[in-house]
C-alpha cells in the first residue's frame, strides 16, 4: 500500500528510487506504468495530467525478473523492439557492445542466466522511444564490471535528454548513478533530493547513502 508518494523528475535526469525490501519501489513503478490500479493520484507530464491510457506514450517500464516470450531468441526479441519503435540499426548496434548481446543473440530467452536476462531487458528498455524510462533493479544480477558498464550506458542515455527513473536496492550503486534520490520506506516517501540535500536532511555532513538511509528510516 502506498500513501503520499509524490515527487518530480526533470528531463535528462536520473532519479533513483531507494528503499528496503517491501518499501514499495516496484509498486510505485507499476502504478506509474498503469500496470497496477491506484485509488487516487495524478501523473503530470509537462504540467498536464496524463490519463493511464496516454501514459504509455510518455513512459516505458522495464520490470525486474520477467521472462518475456521465453521460446524466442534474443536476436528476435531485440529486433522486434527495434522495429516496433522504428529505431535506427545503429541504436541496437550501440547497445550490443556494452551489454554483450552478440554472444547471446542466438540463445532463447528461457535459456539465459539471470545476468544475461537483465542485460537483454535493459536493451529492450533502451530500444523504446518514450521520453521517460522506468527501470526496476537495473543492476540486479550483474557483476561488478557489467554494473559499471551499464551505469555508463544509463548516464549516456540520460545525456541524450531521456529521463531515467530507476529503483535500486544497492545503495552504493544508487549513489553513483543517480542525480537525485527518492527515499521510500513502508510505502511512504521519506525524503527526496540530491545526495547533499539528503545529507543535510539527515544531519550527516559527509555521510554515505547507507548512513543517511539508516538515519532517516
Amino acid at each position, binding site marked *: 500500500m502506498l500513501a503520499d508518494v509524490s515527487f518530480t523528475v526533470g528531463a535528462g535526469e536520473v532519479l533513483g528510487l531507494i528503499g528496503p525490501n517491501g518499501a514499495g519501489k516496484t509498486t510505485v513503478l507499476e502504478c506509474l506504468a*498503469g*500496470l497496477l490500479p491506484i485509488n487516487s493520484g495524478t501523473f503530470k507530464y509537462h504540467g498536464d495530467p496524463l490519463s493511464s491510457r496516454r501514459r504509455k506514450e510518455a513512459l516505458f*517500464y522495464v520490470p525486474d525478473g520477467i*521472462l518475456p516470450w521465453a521460446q524466442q531468441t534474443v536476436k528476435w526479441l531485440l529486433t522486434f523492439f527495434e522495429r*516496433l519503435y*522504428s529505431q535506427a540499426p545503429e541504436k541496437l548496434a550501440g547497445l550490443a557492445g556494452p551489454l554483450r548481446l552478440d554472444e547471446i543473440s542466438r540463445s532463447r530467452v528461457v535459456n539465459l542466466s539471470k545476468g544475461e536476462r537483465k542485460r537483454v531487458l535493459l536493451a529492450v528498455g533502451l530500444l523504446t*522511444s518514450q521520453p521517460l524510462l522506468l527501470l526496476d533493479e537495473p543492476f540486479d544480477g550483474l557483476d561488478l564490471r557489467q554494473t559499471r558498464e551499464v551505469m555508463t550506458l544509463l548516464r549516456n542515455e540520460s545525456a541524450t535528454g531521456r529521463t531515467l527513473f530507476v529503483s535500486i536496492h544497492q545503495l552504493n550503486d544508487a549513489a553513483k548513478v543517480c542525480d537525485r534520490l527518492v527515499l521510500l520506506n513502508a510505502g511512504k516517501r521519506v525524503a527526496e533530493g540530491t545526495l547533499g540535500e539528503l545529507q543535510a536532511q539527515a544531519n550527516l555532513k559527509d555521510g554515505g547513502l547507507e548512513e543517511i538511509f539508516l538515519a532517516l528510516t
Partner: protein
Amino acid sequence: MAGWRKFSLRSPSFLQLLAKEFRELLASRAFWLLLLFVGFLVGHSFITAVGLYAEMSGNGNGPAALPQGLSSLDGILVPTWGAYDLAATLLFPFVAIRMVSSEKESGALKLLLQLPGTLSSKLAAKGLVLLFAWLVSWLPGIAAIVLWHSYGGHTYAPETVNLLLGHLLRGLLSGGLGVAAAGLADGAASAAIVTLAFTVGTWALDFVAAGRGGFVQQLASYTPTAALRSFEQGLLRFSVLAVMLLVSIAAFVLAGIWLNIGRTIKFRLVATLVLAVVTAGAVWIAANVRATRDQSENHRNSFSPVDEAALGGIKQPLKITILLSPEDPRLTDFEQNILRKLRRSLDKLEVEYAASSRTGLFDSEEHYGEIWYELGGQKTVERSTIEEVVLDQIYTLAGVSAPDRSGEEGFPGYPLAAQPKHAAAIFYLFWPLVVIVTWWLLRRL
C-alpha cells in the same frame, strides 16, 4: 512525445504484433500437437466413413434399397469433419490458452500492455493468428474431401461450404473461450479447468434441455455442439451464425477486460457485468432472427416446394402440443422430420411439450403419444410422425386443400463402394511426418 505513431490494423506496429503472435504460435507445442492429432482423428474418421459408405452402397451385399438417397454429407463429410468438433473441444482451446497464459505467467504481459496500440488491437492480433491456426489444422480435412473426389465421390458445394462455415464458427468460439478463460484465470491449468467446465456444462445443458421446449431448449440450441448440428444438417440458420459470432467476440472482450491489470477488480467486475448484459441483449435479438437457408442438396430441412407454398398461405398461428417424453424416439422423429421444417415454413408456430416423464417407459397417462394440433380455434389429434399425415392434418385445420405431390422427384442419392486408397498412408504417415519435420525446421528460426 517523439517516436509515437498512429496505430491502426494496417500500421507497421500492428503487423509487428501480428508477426510476434505468429512466432509465438509456431513456438507453441499445443499448436503442433493439435496438428499432429487432428491428422489421426480425421484419418480414422474418414477411413471408417468411407468403409461404412461402401457397405451401405451395396459393397457388403446389403439391402438393395439402402443405397437410395445416400448423401455424402451424412456419410462422409459430417463424420470426417466430426473430428474437428473433438479438436475444437479438447485440443484447440489449449492453443488459445497458451497464447495468453504464457504471457501472464512469464511477465511478458507487462511489456505487451505498454507496446503501441490498444489492448483490443493486441487481442485482435491473437484472434487472427488463432484463426490461422484453426485453418491450418483443416488441411487433413480438406485432404479428405480431395481424396473422396479422387475415389469418384460426390459433394455438393453449398452444403460443404455450409459445413465448413459451421466448423469455422466452432473454432472461433473455442478460441474465444480459451482466450477468455486464460484472461480470467491466473495460470494455464486453471484456464484449462474453466474451459473444460464450460464444455461439460454445455453438454449437460444439451442433455437436460432435449424435448423440454421453452427457454431452456432455445438456449440449448446455441451450445457449440447443437449450433454445429444445424450446419451438419445443411441448414444455415442466421440466428446461430450471429449468436456464435457474438459470443466469440464477447469472449475476446472479456479477456480484454481481465487482462487490463491496471484496472481495479471492482472496475473489471462492473465491466464484465455490462458486457454480460450487452451480450445477452444482442444474443436475444440475434436469436430472434428467423432467416434460414436450406443448403442441403436433398432439401432435408424443407418440405417439398408445393407443401412450402401451401404452408406459406397459412397466416393463422398453429399450436402443437406433444405428449411424448424427451427420450421417446418418436419425438426425435417428429423433431427431425416435422418440427424443424415447420419452424422454417410457418411464421407463427407454438410448440408445447406436455409429457410429464423423461423416458415415457412407465407413463401411464391415457393420452401419452398424442400430438394435438390447434389452428383457428379448431383442434385435432394425431399420433403419426409421418410428414404427409401431419401436413394433411394441418391443411384440414386451415381449410387448405392438400397439394398434389405426384410430380416431385426424389433425391437420387450418390452410392459409392470405394476403398479408402492411400488414406492410411496420408493421414497416419505422411501428415505426421510433415508436421514433425516442419516443427523441427521452424524451431531453429
